[in-house]
């Protein structure tokens, strides 16, 4: 079943068109990696999906329901449900510094449940938060503050925080790019365990080896379009587009 369908998404900043009509679809439980050199529009695509930017035109369909549809010149509103179909893990973690780890996880669910009859109780939220911390291996850090954690630990908290809202599709924007090399492994392991649990994910990454073994499908983006798309073996093993070939031959070792 198609969980996500993106149709002809376009985004301009001023006069520069950054997304030039992107089409993408995703099956439930599928893991998609997006690779490509910087400036290609990968971040912008994720930000449009998470409504941090409003696409100038195009459609976003989640589970058969159109959650965003813009024609040229329109700026549609985004419903809270649409917002919560997506989760986003940032390169810079963006944890809330004044809250402890467990409070970071509980804040949004608590605010959502507040004043709603039959909503989740604080105890239920806490139980869920604790079990997610266990899953990312940080149950002992529940009462620490973000400034006391390493980058890898902060990123794992950020992943758990995103999972608290049970998004249909969890997006990652270069989740390991601001980490020291020795800390990337712990984050990538968590992402892989999410795949084993059946989470649908879109991962923008420069970790080519990781993209190759974790993804069901790989997309190569360049200059605001999807240049090539296929299974990891197709894209990495036997790229068709010249741009993909050039990127991979330079990029494999360096990035």
């Amino acid at each position, binding site marked *: 079943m198609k969980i996500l369908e993106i149709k002809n998404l376009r985004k301009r900043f001023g006069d520069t068109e950054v997304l030039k009509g992107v089409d993408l679809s995703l099956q439930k439980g599928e893991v998609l990696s997006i690779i490509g050199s910087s400036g290609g529009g990968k971040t912008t695509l994720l930000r449009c999906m998470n409504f941090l930017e409003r696409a100038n035109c195009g459609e976003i369909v989640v589970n058969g329901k159109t959650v965003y549809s813009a024609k040229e010149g329109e700026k549609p509103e985004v419903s809270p449900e649409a917002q919560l179909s997506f989760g986003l893990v940032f390169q810079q973690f963006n944890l809330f510094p004044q809250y402890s780890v467990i409070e970071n996880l509980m804040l949004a669910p608590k605010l959502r449940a507040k004043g709603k009859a039959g909503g989740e109780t604080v105890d239920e939220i806490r139980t869920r938060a604790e079990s997610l911390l266990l899953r990312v291996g940080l149950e002992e850090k529940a009462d620490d503050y973000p400034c006391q954690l390493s980058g890898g630990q902060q990123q794992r908290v950020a992943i758990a925080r995103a999972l608290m*809202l049970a998004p249909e599709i969890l997006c990652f924007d270069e989740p390991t790019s601001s980490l020291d090399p020795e800390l990337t492994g712990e984050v990538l392991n968590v992402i892989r365990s999410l795949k084993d649990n059946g989470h649908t994910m879109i991962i923008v990454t420069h970790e080519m080896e990781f993209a190759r073994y974790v993804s069901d499908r790989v997309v190569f983006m360049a200059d605001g379009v999807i240049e090539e798309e296929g299974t990891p073996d197709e894209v990495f093993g036997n790229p068709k587009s010249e741009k993909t070939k050039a990127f991979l031959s330079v990029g494999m070792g360096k990035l």
Partner: protein
Amino acid sequence: MELFIEVFSKLGNGFIIALLLFALTLILAIPLGLVMCFCTMSKFKPLSLFSKLIVWVLRGTPLMLQVFAIFYLPGLLKLFVWPQMNTGWVWFDNTFSTRFIAALVAFAINYAAYFSEIYRGGIESIPKGQYEAGQVLGLTKKQVFFKIVLLQVIKRIIPPMSNEIITLIKDTALANTIAVYELIFEAKEFMTVDGLIWPLFVAGGFYLVFVGLLTILFGRLEKKLDYFKA
């Protein structure tokens, strides 16, 4: 000995007036500054330009001038612009309370302008990622401001705010220019009437002790928010 008691009781009264002016100014200026801050940050251009102009004038001219302006302006208006203005108007009859209120109004709007710039700096220094993380987690704009941004802003503005607040207690001395009987006014009386210099130094001691207390208080507040880095 009698002289000592007289000096201390007079200066004590002056100090109470100074403290009253100080406290009321803060009570008014802290929220008014927030309003000014939101106005200068407004996306509605005319409003933001107008409020930036106001802040510029308030920060760009001497506070003493503003005290005079607030004190004399209504009187001048009555004299030249609107002579038939109801003479029963209480707020310019030159009693102590009207002079005190004129000083208070001038202080409050002047300090609100300074505070608004401190708030703006604090708000603008919060990384965009904090707002974005809040939005992606489904928080409303209001929730993002009150639950995520506000405490981080408070932490960042405590040092500059404590500076301004320490300046304020000393600035209350300016009210003596429109004969509000605060600390310096009383001390000057001893100088001009009795030829005594030392009460002025005693007055200085009052300020010094109070500033010491404020410093300790703000130090504690800063320590209280030391548990996180932002």
